[in-house]
């Protein structure tokens, strides 16, 4: 303690530094959130000098106030991005390809894990050297059997009696994807503003609490009731998220710590409420709320045989909205500017604290839509498992989607399929549902480290290039995670 008290004024100065630049630290190592969507896949190493030049040009134009130079940035620096590489290499080392390869690699490793605990594989391993073909085919069978079951449980089941039944798994996938997409959008939006929103879990819970209460405690006419449920949920999530933004903007506290703590506070608050007369179902000793009024739940959009509800349509709308917000609106431009460089954004006249609060509130509102989808769509009741693990999965969804709205949407569908299929997989093949967590996290790890994926598939750019790029700091940083 004394050791730290002595240089306190120094510490305060540093703290002030940090507060003035709320989102700087997490930003710098994570260019994914700042990097504008590249129009074409490029090899990150050669692209780096061009990016540096672009940054320099942006500075020259005083954050866009002055007219930018008519000469393209790449021409100014004299290097064409990726120009020295062949087209084929660019395709195979580009970010899109890395994503596909990362998913592939994760699935292979997951398959090996499934095979390693398979009985048949164990049996054939005992005479591995006598007949290796038996062993290999057992590994192949174990892995593919699980993955086929996963596919049949998530997309299309050929054994169904009618087309409607055959596509039931797909509808289930979409149902589960709904909260993943909206919460993922919230996380992605915050990423783009350089904020780590680990708090989707808590935001879903707070939204769920408010939405459920409006749903079962108030009795309103059809239409108005559902609208009020939706608004209540969105407001609940927005307040919980905005509070984090406010604390960060006012005190400089790190949002990662705040959101993690807020998740737990929300969870215990929910558990407390579910034991109070206001929320507990009458005559019930378990912590469960009354069922929501029929006027307060989302209609099932494709008939009553599927659980798919209006929330999915709203999730699509939210994706469009976030896309518009980020790419077409002034506020979104400010968010991205703050995410790219808060100091520059401040200098350019952007109200960074306001942007911080606003982006966290919108992120919370999006996560709140997930909460509404849960209580008013899928479950129709409030329990302490209302958020399941959607809030945490949303982080991986946003990372896999590279923090772009439609990328997040696609990633949400993929992880929704994993979730839906895993249930069937467990029933049919006995492969535990946890394998999905392994595959999900491996995908994100690999996507975050493209050099590793390229090394595994032998696609790394030639050594000379790597050395050249490594000389500048920017290049190495972008190379690490582009």
């Amino acid at each position: 303690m004394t050791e730290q008290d002595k240089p306190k004024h120094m510490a305060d100065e540093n703290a002030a530094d940090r507060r003035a630049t709320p989102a700087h630290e997490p930003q710098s190592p994570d260019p994914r959130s700042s990097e504008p969507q590249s129009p074409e896949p490029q090899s990150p190493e050669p692209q780096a000098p061009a990016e540096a030049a672009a940054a320099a040009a942006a500075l020259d134009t005083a954050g866009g106030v002055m007219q930018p130079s008519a000469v393209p940035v790449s021409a100014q620096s004299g290097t064409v991005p990726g120009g020295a590489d062949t087209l084929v290499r660019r395709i195979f080392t580009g970010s899109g390809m890395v994503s596909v390869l990362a998913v592939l690699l994760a699935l292979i490793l997951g398959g090996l894990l499934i095979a390693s605990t398979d009985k048949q594989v164990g049996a054939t391993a005992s005479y591995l050297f006598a007949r290796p073909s038996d062993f290999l085919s057992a590994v192949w069978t174990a892995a593919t059997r699980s993955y086929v079951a996963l596919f049949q449980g998530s997309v299309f089941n050929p054994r169904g009696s009618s087309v409607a039944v055959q596509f039931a798994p797909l509808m289930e996938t979409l149902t589960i994807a709904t909260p993943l997409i909206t919460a993922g959008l919230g996380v992605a939006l915050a990423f783009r503003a350089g904020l780590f929103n680990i708090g989707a879990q808590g935001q879903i819970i707070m939204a769920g609490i408010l939405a459920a209460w409006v749903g079962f405690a108030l009795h309103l006419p059809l239409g108005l009731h559902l609208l009020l449920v939706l608004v209540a949920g969105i407001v609940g999530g927005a307040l919980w998220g905005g509070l984090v933004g406010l604390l960060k903007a006012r005190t400089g506290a790190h949002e990662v710590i705040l959101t993690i703590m807020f998740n737990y506070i929300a969870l215990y608050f929910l558990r407390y409420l579910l034991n109070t007369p206001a929320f507990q179902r009458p005559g019930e000793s378990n912590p469960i709320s009354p069922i929501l009024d029929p006027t307060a739940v989302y209609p099932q959009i494709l008939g009553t045989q599927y659980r798919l509800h209006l929330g999915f349509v709203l999730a699509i709308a939210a994706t469009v909205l976030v896309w518009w917000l980020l790419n077409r609106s002034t506020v979104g431009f400010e968010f991205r500017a703050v995410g790219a460089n808060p100091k520059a954004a401040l200098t350019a006249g952007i109200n960074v604290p306001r942007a911080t609060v606003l982006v966290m509130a919108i992120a919370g509102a999006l996560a709140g839509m997930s909460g509404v989808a849960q209580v008013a769509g899928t479950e129709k009741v409030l329990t302490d498992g209302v958020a399941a693990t959607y809030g945490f999965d949303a982080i991986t969804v946003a990372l896999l989607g590279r923090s772009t709205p439609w990328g997040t949407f696609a990633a949400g569908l993929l992880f929704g399929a994993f979730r839906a299929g895993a249930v069937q997989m467990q029933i049919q093949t006995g492969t535990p549902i946890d394998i999905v967590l392994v595959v999900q996290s491996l995908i994100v790890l690999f996507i975050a480290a493209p050099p590793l994926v390229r090394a595994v598939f032998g696609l790394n750019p030639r050594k000379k290039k790597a050395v050249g790029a490594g000389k500048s700091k920017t290049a190495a940083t972008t190379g690490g995670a582009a």
Partner: protein
Amino acid sequence: MSTTATSPVPGKPQQGKPEPGTTRPAADSVPAVSAKPVTWKVPVLLAVLGVVAFIFFGVMGPNQTAKFGISSSGDFFQLPAIEVPAFLGGIVLSVLMLGLAAYAVYLKTRNEASPGWLPIVFIVLFVAAFLIWVVGGARTPSISLAGLIAGSVTLAVPLVFGSLSGVLCERAGVVNIAIEGQLLGGAFTAAMVATLTKSPFIGLLAAAVAGAVVSMVLAVFSIKYLVNQIIVGVVLNVLVSGLTGFLFSTVMQANKAQFNSPGRLPIIDIPVLSSIPVIGPILFKQSVVGYLMYIAVAVVWVGLFKTKWGLRVRAVGEHPQAADTMGIKVNATRFWNVTLGGAVAGIGGSFFTLVAIDSFTKEISGGRGFIALAALIFGRWNPIGAFFAALLFGFADNLQSIVTIIGTPVPSQFMAMLPYLVTVLAVAGLVGRSRPPAADGIPYVKG
């Protein structure tokens, strides 16, 4: 650099040439003459808490007599139980708290900062008043203080190891969100290896190795591949949770006797010393993991603040460029520190399966890695601070279960919430600013 001289409204373009570091949010900017601004935060917070304590613990306090047992029957010598009339106790303690708050306000008016002991004494008084209030309002207003404290220390063991892991990583400049994963990995491996080798001690070693392996993934991805450390940490928690859950379901559940009955580490009872009331069971009646905890706290503290190694680690965490210039291998130091941190957390994880319960279940660490993270921050990135913060959180955890048993008006969920609330207050700078190492979370690229 002056901190408060120009406090511009954030967001407005500044006049003149903006200098980095001259801005601060308008939250608490009181123009101060000295270089070190004294804020109203501490006095106001203490005053508010004092008034709350006076109203709830004092004026509205229960009318029973709270009884705190100090000795247990097997102790070396017996001490009488402390009996406090709850109403009077609440009044006296809250008046003392208000006195401290008034002193802080007085110091503030003279532009002096409150001394370091003041908030600590205040917290102790507040906890005491709270305890009296809780116990005094219970159906059975009697509690074993010795048991409460001993239980708190036991519950704090994994938290202490986890936060030490955080200290080792973050002092070297690598954010460790993966404490939860390291604890869980350690717990799983300890159970598995101890069962296979039929030796809990080998299980303990294996737990350290497992924690180190999880940490190495963090180190490789964040140092070699420059992936954002927070992302790696978050993802690692999910990965370890999935892996252990998968292996638990496929391997352990099918054959519990063969894979998941590790047996417990023995409790080592040091004769005579362990019979001292209150401190005996805490210090001299622990498992190997419990004794290791005290050793680890001391070693990490001495290592970080009294040795050449520690100076280098802190240099790497505060100013890697300078450290590099002085010839310290920044990334190698970080790598090995993160690995060491993982090993420490792994040992903490073995507590779950070798000391607390003698088998592994899914998610056995139950979010304690995040409480450890909270303890690390509340303890200001200092091993001893983290130790006491972890004890406080262990205390809250233990009190929560006792509160439900003796039946008090406080919902146990709010007790469970306490560590997280306290951490929010700590990071928001309300309970003294908690400052991370300057280069925490920033990857170092030479050049």
